[in-house]
């Protein structure tokens, strides 16, 4: 356990020592902030017309719904280096010759990225928080949205970690994880096609459908379990992949 935490701490530190993390956070914050202000302005205009939407619907619903697309783009950038760069520079040998198991290495790296994701979630939480002084927010709703974002990013990160373990080129890892995530994301379009057999399965497997209920403020165990299973699957695949590398 100490080994996992040690690796996670160093990974988290290295993420924030790279300008990439700050650039990504800045861009994400700028774009979501821009969308946030737009949504608020729209909401203000709509409420004058007597709309029954709450402000929490706008923030947690629309803003976080939009954020998922942005996060799909940036999480591959954050996970691309995890193994690919270490392999390229040869520093992976440090981990492989240390008395730590592959599972500990993978979990440590994963926790390190989760630390970054936690920071993104905090930034996402700041926007509704800024409204707290002027209006009553439905905090449960906002929290469900944030939990959803965290779980979604966790799943993205696990897949990205796996793809990063397949190659030694960080850019290839980024492109490939983006592609992989998008395919899993879009698998729900098959569900709209009646001629596809087992179409419900594809809808169920899609990354984004499980976010919908959380976005609407419904905390369903099935969706949470889906994200955990999804992450566990890719972490396990990563361990397998690293084990193959030694053989």
């Amino acid at each position, binding site marked *: 356990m100490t080994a996992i935490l040690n690796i996670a701490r*160093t990974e988290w530190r290295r993420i924030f020592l790279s300008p990439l993390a700050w650039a990504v956070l800045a861009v994400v914050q700028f774009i979501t902030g821009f969308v946030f202000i737009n949504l608020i302005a729209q909401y203000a205009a709509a409420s004058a017309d007597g709309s029954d939407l709450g402000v929490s619907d706008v923030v947690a619903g629309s803003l976080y719904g939009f954020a998922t697309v942005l996060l799909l783009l940036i999480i591959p950038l954050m996970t691309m280096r995890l193994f690919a760069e270490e392999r390229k520079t040869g*520093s992976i040998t440090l981990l492989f010759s240390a008395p730590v198991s592959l599972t500990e290495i993978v979990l440590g790296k994963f926790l390190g990225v989760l630390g970054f994701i936690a920071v993104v979630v905090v930034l996402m939480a700041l926007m509704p928080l800024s409204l707290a002084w002027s209006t009553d927010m439905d905090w449960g709703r906002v929290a469900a949205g944030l939990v959803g974002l965290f779980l979604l990013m966790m799943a993205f990160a696990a897949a990205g970690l796996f793809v990063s373990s397949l190659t030694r080129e960080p850019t290839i890892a980024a492109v490939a994880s983006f592609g992989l995530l998008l395919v899993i994301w879009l698998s729900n379009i098959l569900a709209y096609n009646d001629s596809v057999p087992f179409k419900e399965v594809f809808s169920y497997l899609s990354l984004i459908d499980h976010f919908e209920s959380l976005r609407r403020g419904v905390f369903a165990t099935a969706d949470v379990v889906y994200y955990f299973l999804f992450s566990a699957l890719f972490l396990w695949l990563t361990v397998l992949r690293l084990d193959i590398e*030694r053989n």
Partner: protein
Amino acid sequence: MDTEANEVLIEARGLTRRYGPTVAVNRLDLTLRKGEILGLLGPNGAGKSTTMKMLTGNLAPSDGDVRIKGVSMREQPKLAKSSLGYLPEQPPVYPELTVDEYLGYCAGLHGVARKDLADALASAKRDCGLADVGHRLVGNLSKGYQQRVGIAQAIIHRPPVVILDEPTVGLDPIQIREIRTLIAELGRSHSVILSSHILPEIQAVCSRVMIIARGLVVYNEPMAATQGDASVIAGFKRAPQAVQLAGIDGVDGASPLGDDRFLVTPRKGADPREAIARAAAQNDWGLIELHAQQRTLEEIFVELTSGDLRAAA
């Protein structure tokens, strides 16, 4: 204490590594006792690095097993690796961390307790001459210093076995000397395996030499064995005939090397240098150079690795 001094720290039996049809390392046996420094030599692509990767658990052998302090790398890799320190060809450093942060991380990885961390850090930095650069970023250090950081990483947890893959590559001559001194010091309290292309380096620090060619061990002897039959180089202002030199007491034969220098082969167990000096003074040959030359590792190396037939034998 005596039994402890003979403790076997690394034992590899029948180590084989195949990459598809190519056999990189073929049935390699290796035993390393406490306090020994083993030099691993071989031409490029002979299987040195592959061997070291297998010894450190970075690569699974296709056949055979490695035991570190009696613990099997296959069955209990974590326990076996805890007695190891490894510097690969590329120092496995993170350029964005400072030397202190990086070494602290390595110490943690190798299970150094938090309370011992400061001591471990200080002694590793002292041993590798890094005391002044602790706060600097690894990426900003010169190649030589990065190499030292790599060595510090390998010894920070004071493992009984240290494995260094070409530790002096990219260093300047002064740094090479310092690293050699460091390795010799390490050899007193740890067992060291060292690979290098630089033969004098192996000759200077190692107590045993292993030469690998095409994945096979072709030579595995204590360093002393290579030093048995020293020959003598003599240079003169007014050179005598080779036969005159051969007539001197204790000389078996002499062959001219050009430039009025001779390679003198002594009789078994004899040191003819004094006699040569005396003869030179008596005959006014103008002796300007006289020294013993050990049969160099280079000669052994070339002999064993150049001919295909010999290597196969």
